């Protein structure tokens, strides 16, 4: 009943949409709608009724007003690289694909900030900034839209040193459901810190597109580190790996990335990327800084890992080797799926105090064995955060059911 009423509403608004953003920017094509109804996750495609491609914030605002007047759901769409099914139009509606708004505005080099529109991805921004000595370090793996990263409060491997989107978004321009355009920290403002007013910016960061459409985000930039060193170290047990992490952090080493992969994950990565790491719990680390500070950081870290029975401490400084090391970790998503061809991966995201991490991971692995599930584990141990990537056969309802129960237990 509701869907039928909505279909009629969509037909009425089509001409309004076309007059706002032009014929070319309104699409009813099945392929286009399907493309905008799914992301990189295992969740089923839920296509919207129509996709619009606004070119500026004024168009977004006018389109939103029309949707509001006709009670149509709005789904903002950046790059569709999410892993949680956030873009599925579960009640149909209008998908606002923001890829035509792709300007990089207002770079202030001395103030370390820049403003970007939703069509700008993090790799595009960093390529643009390459001559300035600045970069934006939040890296959730995918080459995602920066405004999308703000909406989902993206984190990533660099969070242990540089923070997540919560700490690095200074201002947002948002179009609310009725078309009103607001600036969460004031128009054009980019103070590095403030105690004035409610923290609206952080209300919207992480709101997953449920409170408004983000059309601009002002980001905090950092200096590109003079040098980087990446290292890999294997451990006889999960406990040893996590203990090393805790001690490295306690020693005050400003480690930039510290990632944990369990034996199943390492095995998958070895197979997928043709590597030959020992198949045991492993830590991937990265240090940023000047040449001298790097020597100190690496020496301290090596000492700590050795005292925890860590072995094979390999490290690399040149860009090509470092990229290869990290590609293995970033490709974990695909490596996990490759373990069982034809299956899809269902990502889980758990965060606990560091001290509880070894116990949680050990219990999780036991549960996986008992439930006969494949679930390689990779995680940002520096933040006590890990992902258990459930590899499931989408056509096996029993397995899907087991995965569901497992994730419920995991969340508790």
């Amino acid at each position, binding site marked *: 009943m509701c869907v039928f009423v909505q279909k009629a509403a969509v037909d009425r608004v089509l001409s309004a949409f076309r007059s706002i953003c032009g014929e070319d920017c309104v699409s009813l094509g099945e392929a286009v709608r399907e493309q905008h109804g799914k992301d990189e996750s295992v969740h089923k495609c839920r296509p919207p009724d129509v996709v619009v491609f606004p070119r500026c914030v004024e168009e977004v605002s006018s389109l939103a007003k029309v949707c509001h007047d006709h009670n149509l759901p709005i789904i903002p769409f950046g790059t569709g690289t999410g892993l949680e099914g956030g873009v599925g139009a579960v009640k149909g509606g209008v998908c606002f694909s923001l890829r035509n708004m792709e300007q990089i505005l207002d770079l202030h080099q001395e103030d370390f900030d820049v403003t970007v529109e939703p069509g700008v991805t993090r790799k*595009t921004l960093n*390529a*643009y900034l*390459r*001559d*300035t*000595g*600045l*970069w934006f370090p939040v890296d959730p793996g995918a080459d995602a839209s920066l405004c999308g990263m703000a909406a989902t409060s993206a984190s990533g491997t660099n969070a242990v040193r540089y923070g997540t989107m919560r700490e690095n978004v200074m201002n947002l321009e948002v179009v609310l459901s009725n078309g009103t355009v607001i600036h969460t920290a004031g128009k054009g403002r980019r103070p590095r810190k403030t105690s004035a007013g409610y923290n609206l910016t952080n209300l919207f960061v992480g709101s997953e597109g449920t409170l408004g459409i983000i059309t601009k985000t002002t980001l905090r930039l950092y*200096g*590109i*580190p*003079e040098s980087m060193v990446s290292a890999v170290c294997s451990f006889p047990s999960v406990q040893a790996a996590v203990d090393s992490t805790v001690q490295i952090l306690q020693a005050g080493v400003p480690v930039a990335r510290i990632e944990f992969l369990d034996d199943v994950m390492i095995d998958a990565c070895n197979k997928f990327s043709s590597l030959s790491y020992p198949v045991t719990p492993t830590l991937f680390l990265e240090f940023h800084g*000047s040449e001298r500070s790097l020597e100190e950081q690496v020496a301290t870290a090596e000492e700590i890992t050795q005292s925890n029975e860590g072995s094979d401490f390999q490290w690399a400084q040149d*860009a*090509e080797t470092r990229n290869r090391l990290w590609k293995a970790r970033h490709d974990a998503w695909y490596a996990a799926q490759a373990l069982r061809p034809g299956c899809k991966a269902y990502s889980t995201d758990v965060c606990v105090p560091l001290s509880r991490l070894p116990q949680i991971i050990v219990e999780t692995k036991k549960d996986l064995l008992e439930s006969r599930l494949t679930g390689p584990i990779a995680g940002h141990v520096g933040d006590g955060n890990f992902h258990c990537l459930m590899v499931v056969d989408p056509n096996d309802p029993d397995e899907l059911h087991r995965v569901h129960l497992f994730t419920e237990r995991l969340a508790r």
Partner: protein
Amino acid sequence: MRVIDYAVKIRVKPDNSGVVTDGVKHSMNPFCEIAVEEAVKLKEKKLVKEVVAVSCGPQQSQETIRTALAMGADRGIHVEVSGKDYESLGPLQVSKIMAALAKKEEAQLIILGKQAIDDDCNQTGQMTAALLDWPQGTFASEVSLDGDNVKVVREIDGGLETIRINTPAVLTADLRLNTPRYATLPNIMKAKKKKIANVKPADLGVDLTSRLEVLRVDEPPQRLAGMKVETVEDLVAKLKDAGRV
């Protein structure tokens, strides 16, 4: 050299005389970045003593030279060419300038990008070598300097070709030669203090007259919408109609 940044969407000027450059982001030509990186690497390996970055163009070319200095070049030379001369500046003129500078500076190696991404000529390196009567190693994907000669692995259509040439020589950098480093803030600061000398083409005895005239610049033709057909017979019929079969 300074070109429109590779990520920018190029637009043709309404009068079809060229592309829009006003207000558009410019950066160092990507192949030149690779050339600078290779030169800096040679210096780090202590195989060369000094790296000099050269660019021909208007005032803004100095920014490009500063980026090269931030990557590790020791000093820069800005050959000032602006206005109409800059619009008609092409490989012939640049190679004459490079040849003159190479003689003046007593250079042992000239490393350039294989081609510029705005004109795609792929001629400057070759012309420079010819003017100087030096050997050339173009499309280099690997360079090994060994005393008074250079081993160059070149990317060619059939695969890879390895040659050994004597110095002084001209090399042009191809994509896989190396991965250029990012300029870091401390290095950008240091670069501000490095010297950039200012030179005019006339001082080098170079005549900038171009023998080429650009008649017009057009965008590639717009892609027409496709058509869906239900059967193979339909497809063949439509192809015949369009005169393709």
